[in-house]
């Protein structure tokens, strides 16, 4: 099989789903193909310009972003106008000047804007419609958050400026930290982890440090079958071995099985609550008590905090550490796969071990940054740094703006609407899709279905691809693993009833086709910018970077 390198070859295949046939360009009205940057740009083109290094004599001082003219010292210097010969052009690169072409294609500014705008139109996004990915909390991203993050006082500030010059930035970190501690009822918070999985690592390292401080070497972390893949990966990365805890028939952790496994070799459990079946772990407090009694710690994956924010505090359930995905619960944008932010709230038992740096606020309002040089005797047990600088500041400003907008009452409403929307989906669809835990009572923020009853040869994947043709992003597929052909739907609180009704109608329609054995679903999607992609080919023969086609004479 050869890869079509032209990328915009007119489509002539029988898979064409309308009678319009091929067009000269391969485009179809507003469905625009876009070649690769390297196919339309070259190394001689640029979309930027620069001031010459040498200032023009008598040039006025530039006005600053705030409109003020920058003040410069009035002290006369010995060399107010260095001559161009002085250093200009003299290379100090140690003889390592580039001597080969890099191969970076450039585009002019108009071409650049068009290239990326055309690419953007091949993406589904929350701004276009409901994004029902279970476990991902794809809610509306308010633009106020984007606006505040771009205030020069946050966006144009260097992390290593003297602390006195960044009191407002540290104020954001501190204020958000207080909110996270209060909302979770915990003792402290580590703000620096850069994403959920990084937060998991932070919490697990705290547990490891706490055990070391007690002189204990416990090797095992217990993880429920329904856990996110990051949980076992994180624990393994920190040197623990993983053992699964089974679930009961109702989709919750089997408390008796857990208790039976606890012992002096168990460092702790990693549990997700609400869990990945969309259910609240009723026995959470009993689980925590049992783990603590056996000398272990409780890590909670906070991916699903959106379901309980403002209504339940994890600290009241005996949890020792929990990461909070700011890009889920607190609506910082997912950005096509990051950046995230995963601060970790900690119990009193684990807080001493949390990472550097962190902020401390004094009675007079001054905030210090506790880092290597100031840690001294104030935080002697910290396990150290998890990354450079102070965490995902740009996400902190967005999350704080979002939290302040909702306030304590609004966040509670967020959880209630998220849960109401998910239950509305569950009850509206359980007649047409199998809901394995539908009888276990209400779900939390997400509804779980299985592929039971689909006609032979049709699968969850086919239903998902059919939904794409209906104009929706599919739900989470094949996760959690405890259900066959799982479909996990999380509508979030930012969907109105009309949007939910339309989505429910679409799922019902596609589900009925799957049960009736409509073979056309195998070909779905047919209306998307691309048909189903050959993932096997991509993995078998990885092409990860563009290579210019070889103009072989033999061709």
């Amino acid at each position, binding site marked *: 099989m050869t890869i079509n390198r032209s990328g915009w070859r007119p489509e002539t295949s029988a898979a064409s789903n309308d009678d319009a046939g091929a067009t000269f360009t391969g485009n179809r009205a507003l469905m625009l193909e876009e070649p690769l940057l390297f196919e339309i740009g070259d190394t001689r083109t640029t979309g930027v310009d620069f001031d010459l290094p040498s200032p023009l004599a008598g040039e006025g001082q530039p006005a600053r972003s705030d409109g003020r003219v920058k003040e410069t010292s009035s002290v006369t210097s010995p060399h107010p106008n260095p001559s161009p010969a002085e250093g200009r052009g003299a290379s100090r690169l*140690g003889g390592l000047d580039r001597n080969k072409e890099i191969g970076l294609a450039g585009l002019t500014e108009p071409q650049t804007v068009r290239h990326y705008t055309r690419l953007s139109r091949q993406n589904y996004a929350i701004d276009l419609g409901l994004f029902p990915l279970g476990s991902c909390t794809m809610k509306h991203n308010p633009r106020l958050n984007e606006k505040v993050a771009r205030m020069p006082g946050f966006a144009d500030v260097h992390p290593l400026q003297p602390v006195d010059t960044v009191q407002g930035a540290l104020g954001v970190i501190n204020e958000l930290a207080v909110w996270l501690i209060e909302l979770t009822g915990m003792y402290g918070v580590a703000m620096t982890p850069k994403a959920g999985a990084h937060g998991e690592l932070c919490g697990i390292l705290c547990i490891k440090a706490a055990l070391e401080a007690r002189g204990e070497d416990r090797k095992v972390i217990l993880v429920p079958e329904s856990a996110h893949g990051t949980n076992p990966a994180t624990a393994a990365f920190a040197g623990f071995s993983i053992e699964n805890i089974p679930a009961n028939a109702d989709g919750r952790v089997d408390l008796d099985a857990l208790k039976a496994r606890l012992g002096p070799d168990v460092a702790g459990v990693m549990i997700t609550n609400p869990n990945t079946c969309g259910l609240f772990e009723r026995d959470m407090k009993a689980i925590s008590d049992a783990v603590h009694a056996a000398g272990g710690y409780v890590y909670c994956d906070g991916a699903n905090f959106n379901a309980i924010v403002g209504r339940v505090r994890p600290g009241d359930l005996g949890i020792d550490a929990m990461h909070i995905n700011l890009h889920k619960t607190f609506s910082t944008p997912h950005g096509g796969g990051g950046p995230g932010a995963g601060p970790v709230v900690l119990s009193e038992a684990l807080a001493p071990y949390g990472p550097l740096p962190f902020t401390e606020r004094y009675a007079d309002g001054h905030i210090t940054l506790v880092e290597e040089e100031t840690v001294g005797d104030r935080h002697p047990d910290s396990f150290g740094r998890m*990354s450079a*600088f102070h965490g995902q500041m740009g996400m902190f*400003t967005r999350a704080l703006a979002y939290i302040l907008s909702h306030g304590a009452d609004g966040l509670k409403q967020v959880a209630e609407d998220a849960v109401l929307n998910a*239950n509305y989906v569950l009850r509206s669809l359980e007649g047409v899709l199998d809901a394995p835990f539908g009888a276990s009572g*209400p779900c939390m923020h997400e509804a779980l279905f299985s592929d039971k009853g689909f006609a032979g040869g049709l699968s969850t994947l086919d239903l998902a691809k059919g939904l794409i043709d209906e104009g929706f992003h599919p739900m989470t597929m094949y996760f959690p693993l405890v259900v066959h052909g799982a479909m996990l739907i999380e509508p979030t609180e930012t969907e109105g009833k009309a949007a939910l009704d339309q989505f429910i109608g679409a799922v019902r329609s596609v589900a009925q086709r799957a049960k009736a054995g409509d073979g056309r679903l195998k070909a779905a999607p047919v209306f998307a910018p691309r048909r189903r992609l050959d993932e096997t080919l991509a993995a078998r023969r990885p092409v990860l970077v563009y290579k210019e086609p070889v103009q072989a004479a033999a061709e």
Partner: protein
Amino acid sequence: MRYLPLSDHDRRDMLAAVGAKSIDDLFTDVPEAARLKGTIPGLPDHASELAVERHMGALARKNMVAGDVPFFLGAGAYRHHIPASVDHIIQRGEFLTSYTPYQPEIAQGTLQALFEFQTQVARLYGCEVANASMYDGSTACWEAIAMAARVTRRKKAILSGGLHPHYVSTARTMAKFTGDVLETALPELSAETDLARLATAIDGETSAVVVQYPDILGRIEDLSDLAAKCHAAGALLIAVVTEPVALGACRAPGEMGADIVVGEGQAIGVGLNFGGPYVGLFATREKYVRQMPGRLAGETVDAAGKRGFVLTLSTREQHIRREKATSNICTNAGLCALAFSVHMTLLGEKGLRQLAAVNHAKAVAAAERLARVPGVTLVNESFFNEFTLKLSKEARPAVRALADAGVLGGVSLGRLYPGEAALANGLIVAVTETVTDEDVEAFATTLEGVLA
């Protein structure tokens, strides 16, 4: 509640539809003891858009803005001019509000952009392949050390004293828990790097040698000999680049034989943002691709034969392999990677080389001017846009005094290496295209006053 579309009327209808009398009926699984009555005490209620903007604006105004003053800070985060169209593009909802591209048919925009990004990073670094980004430079550096341990089946890495101290402490934290052994060192305030010393330290246990290029003090040195010595001993050479613009002027580490090149991409397209979010760059040889952490976009075809892109080789990743994954990293820095890529596209080869030339020329001129200040010595022989000064006094209080006078005059080694008396007088100064001659003059004259 401006972000919540449900009306009270909707809520009533929907509660009835699900057979609940009140919302509390949907939270019955939460034990009574854990259910909060009312709202959490001590926290304010909702606020209008205007009120929030005001509150955040007041916090923002408490910071000294880099663009308002003569500004010379670098040390792993650099202030460059970002063309306006970069931010316009990353704020398009289709990029901003999309998810990880797990459904490739409706995520070709993100996937193609990542494929282009990977190509740009690989070429910039002089490597064969690159991933779709990592959290930041420091975490990418640790992931490179962990990958070298997987490739060589050895667990001892030797870190140059020229490696950013935050990168060192990040690696030290992780190594403490994974059982990897790290040999670390402090930098010396001299023109000489420690590459020669590193070469002699390599032995049969060494998994990797980690060097920074340009290093924390701004020094640049050819990596070819060190690479050869690593390879002779069966070890890998990891090169860390915190200032990617340098590679518009200087030879790429991959060209000099580095096996893994990682670094920070923040300087291109992302902005300072008080330290995050940034974007980690990660590139290596094709033969190691299955040992590489993080996401990868790959080329394939669709059912109609058209070229398209997918996330690939995900069997390395946590959502498939769980405890056997190459890394626990789940996310990348997608939007920052896009910003990097858009800015790099605007620059192109020509623009990047121009930008690098302007940076270098300004830095050379600034270094000469500052070296004429009484009590100041230039440490570097070689540098790109960042160099180290040795002051006649401790640099930390000098930096504070400069800030009081309205100049953000670099990063003191005292802040980065607390308690190291031999480094206390060192000051790292970065000079980019955003610095004017007036800025340099203001810095020089103010510094003269501070040191007098």
